């Protein structure tokens, strides 16, 4: 009898322990896709990392805001394949929590990278690997990472994958790169004012501006944006942690085009 009591108690204790233990393994699911099934030797292709984020949790943008960490991807590519340009991010959301502002994604997010291949490569197949690390937060924050990879064939002809349309759509809605020549900013001890004087031709109204360069602005200050005929001005408060404002800052501009469509662009401006 005593033996049975011990066994039952042990089973019950084990059960209680399992039900109390919190598991965070399923908070973020990582997948990798490419727009090509077969890479045409010497041509470019894209690889997208999808982070499927559990409801009510969020991961962070390249500038995480007041707390958190940027999501990072370290690419592992074979010889003859190189990443071209920086990673392409979707525009983030402002996530407000206890008076703090973070920039990130409270939903699935795709991070896209363009790759170029060498013409002389004689590979028949190649593997693109990605070491992805992120911080996922709600009330708690959990640092996590995962490794994913994709095998692609290499040939003389280009062959689309079933994900080509999805990746092209994502690239279509991702912020475009725009070279600003005239747009500037001015900063003093308290504030920073951005003046956009050259913008893409289709800009009707600028709705929001995010400073990508981390640590420059006080995120809890609500940005004041003024659209006038030939220019847009935006006022920010300087971060209390910055000693010297850099000579150049990178910004993300969210705007409505002349057809009422939401668009965005990234640019570098100087003072």
């Amino acid at each position, binding site marked *: 009898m005593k033996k049975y009591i011990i066994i039952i108690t042990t089973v019950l204790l084990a059960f209680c322990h399992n039900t109390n233990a919190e598991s965070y393994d399923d908070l973020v699911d990582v997948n990798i896709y490419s727009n090509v099934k077969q890479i045409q030797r010497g041509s470019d292709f894209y690889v997208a990392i999808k982070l499927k984020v559990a409801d009510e949790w969020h991961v962070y943008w390249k500038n995480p805001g*007041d*707390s*958190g*960490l940027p999501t990072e991807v370290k690419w592992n590519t074979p010889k003859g394949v190189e990443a071209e340009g920086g990673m392409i991010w979707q525009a983030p959301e402002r996530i*407000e*929590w*206890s*008076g*703090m502002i*973070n920039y990130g994604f409270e939903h699935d997010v795709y991070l896209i990278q363009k790759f170029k291949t060498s013409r002389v490569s004689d590979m028949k197949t190649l593997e693109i690997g990605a070491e992805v690390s992120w*911080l996922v*937060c709600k*009330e*708690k*924050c*959990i*640092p996590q990472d995962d490794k994913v990879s994709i095998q692609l064939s290499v040939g003389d002809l280009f062959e689309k994958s079933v994900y080509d349309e999805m990746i092209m759509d994502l690239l279509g809605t991702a912020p475009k790169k725009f070279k600003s020549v005239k747009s500037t900013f001015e900063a003093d001890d308290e504030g920073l004012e951005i003046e956009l004087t050259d913008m893409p031709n289709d800009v009707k109204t600028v709705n929001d501006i995010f400073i990508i360069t*981390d*640590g420059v602005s006080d995120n809890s200050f609500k940005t004041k944006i003024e659209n006038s005929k030939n220019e847009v001005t935006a006022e920010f408060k300087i*971060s*209390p*942690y*910055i*000693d010297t404002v850099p000579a150049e800052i990178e910004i993300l501009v969210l705007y409505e085009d002349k057809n009422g469509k939401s668009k965005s662009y990234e640019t570098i401006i100087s003072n």
Partner: protein
Amino acid sequence: MKKLSIIIAMFMLAATTMFASDHAKVGEKAPQFTLTDSKGVEHNLSDFAGKYVVLEWVNYDCPFVKKHYESKNMQKLQKEFTEKGVVWLAVCSSAEGKQGNFSKEELMKRQKSLGTAETAYLLDESGKVGKMYNAKTTPDMAVINPAQEVIYLGAIDNIPSADKSDVDKADNYVRNALYAAMSGKTVKVKSSKPYGCGVKYANK
């Protein structure tokens, strides 16, 4: 003579309180506060005038705080400087029911197992002091000089990560600020954006 010393001390205390700012800013007087520690003892910042004071915002369940405690980095810093007479105040601004707000028993258990070496662990459930010091993350650090001026605000070091292996590679801003100030040199990095989990203040 004794009477004169008392008057001077009272004047200095009044001046410290009078010119203290509402919000911490490097180069300005540190905002004054009174908080009770985990043992029920009340502490006024002005009690520590004449000494260096470090404020460390803490939440033992935050992975960034774990990085610095599980690697023993924080305890080493606490010991290194409290032995030199620095007052090290850990401040918990987690609201009641939020992560990092522990019962007295749980807190003692955590501190014993981690071997923490702060001077006092201050309870700031209302978040008032956290907000005065613009504490946004755990950890988030402030260094105050003997004249009760803020000489450093922000991150503990220059590698924003939750990875323990980064501790030895990092440039520790708190150590650098304390050693520079103690030897009469200029503090090179006076502020740096803090990194970590958001401070668990009372709701939105």
